[in-house]
């Protein structure tokens, strides 16, 4: 084992990157989910105008590469006098992109809830907003968990794109070490393991959440 390379160079560098990656992923995942719930609900139950705005947003961010979005946020916005730090540009881009995808999973969940639930809520005097918030969303969210979890796992991996706009996280660190010492295979192999561990942990957490939210009639848990 090459202790000097792994122990003194690669691992410490990747650990620095890991910290940045976590700081990227946590706000992006929660912000993206929140934005997705809002947008998905608007795209399903909103007034025609709100629906249109939601659809345009989702269409734009699902229809263009994330790298392009990040470049616009980091290199393009200064032309309009808006300066974002690499970190802020990355988090903003991830939230906007993830929100667009999450909204689609949420929409699927919302559409799967029978219309009778809405009728029953309204017949009890719930407002339209109240019906959606108290009756439809809690059910739709349970149906959307697998899809939303999938998007979070995907986000963990595409957070690696942050290094392109100089927010140096795991991939960026691995690339620096690899380029400096010309040891690409080992550097990226270990970086890959870091992502694998992150994704596995997220998978376990999502599974626990799904169990915790389990209600008879939604899925087939034991």
């Amino acid at each position, binding site marked *: 084992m090459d202790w000097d390379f792994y122990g003194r160079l690669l691992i410490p560098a990747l650990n620095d990157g890991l910290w940045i990656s976590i700081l990227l992923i946590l706000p992006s995942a929660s912000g993206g989910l929140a934005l997705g719930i809002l947008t998905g609900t608007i795209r399903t139950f909103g007034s025609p105008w709100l629906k249109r705005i939601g659809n345009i947003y989702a269409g734009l961010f699902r229809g263009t590469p994330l790298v392009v979005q990040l470049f616009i946020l980091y290199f393009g916005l200064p032309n309009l006098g808006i300066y974002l730090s690499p970190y802020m540009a990355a988090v903003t881009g991830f939230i906007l992109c993830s929100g667009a995808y999450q909204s689609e999973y949420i929409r699927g969940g919302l559409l799967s809830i*029978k219309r*009778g*639930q809405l*009728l*029953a*809520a*309204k*017949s*009890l*005097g*719930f*407002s339209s907003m*109240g019906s959606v918030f*108290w*009756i439809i969303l*809690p*059910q739709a969210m*349970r149906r959307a968990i697998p899809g939303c979890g999938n998007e979070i796992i995907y986000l963990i991996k595409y957070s690696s794109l942050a290094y392109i706009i100089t927010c140096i996280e795991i991939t960026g660190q691995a690339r620096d070490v690899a380029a400096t010492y010309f040891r690409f295979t080992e550097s990226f192999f270990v970086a890959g393991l870091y992502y694998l561990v992150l994704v596995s942990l997220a998978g376990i957490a999502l599974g626990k959440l799904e169990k915790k939210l389990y*209600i*008879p*009639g*939604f899925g087939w848990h034991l």
Partner: protein
Amino acid sequence: MTKGAPPVLQIDDIHKVLGGKEILRGVSMTVDKGELKILIGPSGGGKSTLLQCINFLLPPDQGRIFLEGHEVHFHKKAELYQFRQHVGMIFQDFNLFDHLNALDNVSIALRKVKKIHKAEARERAYHELERVGLAEKMDLYPAELSGGQKQRVSIARALAMDPKVLLLDEPTSALDPDIIGEVLRVIVELARSGMTMIMATHQIGYVKSLTDEILFMENGRIIERGSPEKLLHPDINTRCRGFCEMLNDLIREP
């Protein structure tokens, strides 16, 4: 009922077009306090649509509805939401909230619509479940209840709001014959206790003696109305009696 008091519900010339088809062609009726009115007639005749128009789940194209003499302006949202609290609705397929246990199904509208405190809402909900004989099932989710139990929970849910009138849309049609009885017993008990109700049903036998008026609907109109004695009298030939006899024949056939 004191003379001169306005009817609980007055429905005036309701019209409704759905999907280009005229489903309701001018339906009017009044319901006094404590009355049980039965809507009967072939499917597609407009019974469900009428009930859904009464609490504006389907907004009528034309016509007016009065609650205790006051016209309901359903375009004003606050007024509409208030009105719906006074008009309970029982659906053919129950529509219990699938993510809530029986107790929360009954208490959620108390908490979120009437803004009653949680403990008080739970107590009221428990009492309503007791009334339909399901207190011991309060922790079960809809997926864990039988059809008859679900419908009884949905009746408890409607009653918890203290409705002035209850609309029942074929409450037993989705149930197996052997459990129809447990739901009908609850409905009969309600009628005896003086609840004002409009019920679309084909199970007319059970509630006949309690029924104040039968309304026979066909092609979007009420074509016959009268007491059960009048409409179902063996000596009088009515469209309603013919229909009921046809239903009975279907049941008797081997």
